């Protein structure tokens, strides 16, 4: 995904400035990568990182490799263009099937550009495996299953699941490490597998715009928020003034 913290709007044309915006790891996915690498370090196994995107998404995959992932796969094809969350999750699920067996799939809880939180659950549905979303802690995990804590509005649920299972994770689950020098060297020379639609053996009508039930029909820039009013002066005066202003707001 594009680095959204860098998104700026051109004040003249009201469009996004994408020039020079690099492809980065979605901040939420960084927690998923870290958790996967930690599971590998504890239990053994292999971490494969997978993304769908334009060729420049390789940079993000290399970053993932430098953080301890073993293999990286990029799904890149013009036929994937225009995918909504239905088609995206279908495509990723097809690639996961092609990769073969797995014990757990970890996803960030959502992307910070689209914010939908729909792709993870979509993948688990296409693969027909159980899921636990918003996981903030993997308390126990073994071949038999896992006990995890799933964040709720009020606190958390403790949930038991068999494996394979798909987890979407929240920030609280860990603190991602920085890439090591060794990792960076490894990532630099690592080969990234690139698969196209043909490689996946997927139904062409389920890919890209064809496979997407939703259509964007209009894009517009929201009215910029009106600037606030800055009250200046001695704290006591300003506080009084503010209280008067707040009185007008019906709570």
């Amino acid at each position: 995904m594009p680095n959204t913290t860098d998104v700026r709007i051109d004040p003249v044309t009201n469009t996004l400035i994408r020039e020079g915006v690099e492809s980065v790891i979605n901040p939420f996915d960084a927690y998923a990568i870290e958790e996967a690498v930690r599971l590998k370090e504890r239990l053994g196994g292999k971490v494969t990182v997978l993304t769908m995107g334009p060729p420049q998404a390789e940079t993000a995959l290399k970053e993932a490799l430098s953080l301890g992932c073993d293999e990286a796969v990029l799904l890149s094809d013009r036929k994937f263009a225009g995918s909504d969350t239905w088609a995206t999750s279908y495509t990723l699920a097809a690639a996961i099937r092609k990769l073969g067996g797995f014990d757990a799939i970890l996803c960030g809880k959502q992307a910070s550009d689209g914010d939908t939180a729909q792709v993870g659950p979509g993948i688990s549905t296409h693969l027909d495996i159980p899921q636990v979303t918003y996981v903030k802690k993997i308390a126990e995990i073994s071949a038999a299953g896992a006990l995890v804590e799933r964040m709720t509005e009020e606190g958390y649920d403790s949930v038991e699941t068999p494996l394979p299972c798909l987890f979407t994770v929240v920030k609280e689950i860990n603190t991602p490490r920085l890439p090591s020098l060794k990792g960076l060297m490894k990532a630099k020379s690592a080969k990234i597998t690139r698969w196209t639609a043909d490689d996946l053996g997927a139904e062409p009508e389920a890919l890209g715009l064809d496979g997407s039930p939703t259509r964007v029909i209009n894009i517009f820039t929201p009215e910029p928020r009106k600037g606030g009013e800055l009250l200046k002066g001695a704290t006591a005066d300003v506080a009084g003034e503010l209280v008067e202003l707040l009185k007008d707001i019906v709570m």
Partner: protein
Amino acid sequence: MAGSITIFLDRCNGCTLCVKACPFDAIHMANKKAVIDMAKCTLCGACVEVCELNAIELKKDAGVKKDLSLYKDVWVFCEQKKGVIQSISFELLGEGRKLADKLGVKLCAVMLGSAVESRIAELAERGADKIYIADHPALQSFQDDPYTEVLVKLAEEYLPEIILCGATVIGRSLVSRVAVRLNAGLTADCTALDIAEKERLLLQTRPAFGGNIMAVIITPNHRPQMATVRHKVMKEAAIDKARKAEVIRKNYPDEVMKSRTRLVDIVAEIEETVNLAEADIVVSGGRGLGGPENFAMIRELAKTLNGAVGASRAAVDADWIPYSHQVGQTGKTVVPKLYLACGISGQIQHLIGDEGRKVPDPRFQGE
């Protein structure tokens, strides 16, 4: 055919309006003519709109037409926790009423739970014409498998044209699965909903790219049209005690109720009684507070105002307060009428967390 986009080079005068309009940076100029990079183009059509010479043609393939006229009614998935209907459900019933009236169809509430019979009247009072109830011990608390299975079964039998659901932890997990199973379109976090009456299409407006742009999304050839909406974006339906609704009770065999996951425990963590995501007043603290001990002032003020306590990422990262209080891009989205930010610089990632706010926030600077 996914559809195609063509530039008629004889009409293009190199004005670059399309280059500026493209939200995906997919158009550049070569020899004073526009060129589209198909690796980046999503066929959104923004360039077609701005081209004054009609030099860009977008063909969107309609795909196989389903008989969409079989689909009727607006459904609202009504979330209950421990038997209590969540306020987001009433907000969606309020919005659903408007959509159902525009379409001339019924507004239906769907509730899954255990021993929720006594809650039916509440849904009728909030405007539901019809109520679908699945009452079973396995549905007492949300688990992905049985909830998905039951909602899919209901939708396959009764064919709703629209399903609305709260963009809550439960809602997002549930309808994302249901939409894939039903091969339906799903749009997350809508901030406005409307109906294109002639085409009977749900017009879904949602922020994209962290709220920097807004997108209007439709589901032309699939039904149901599904959308999630966050807390407090829509107005709650008014209560009309005289209203009655038709109730349809559904029972399903045990295999539908099976869950691969098992709920072991439900733990409440938030100290105060006010739910941050729904609070009308939020008092937040950041790194500028200087230390964890000063959160006592934030808590006291929040308590006095009957508000909730929020925090910036910096304060959470410093372990001054649990993550459940974090407001912003990597935390919670809040929709208060009054947001008091203390010791918070107001980085964009923090501001994204209160998109729905109705009034400007007083931000205290200096001492």
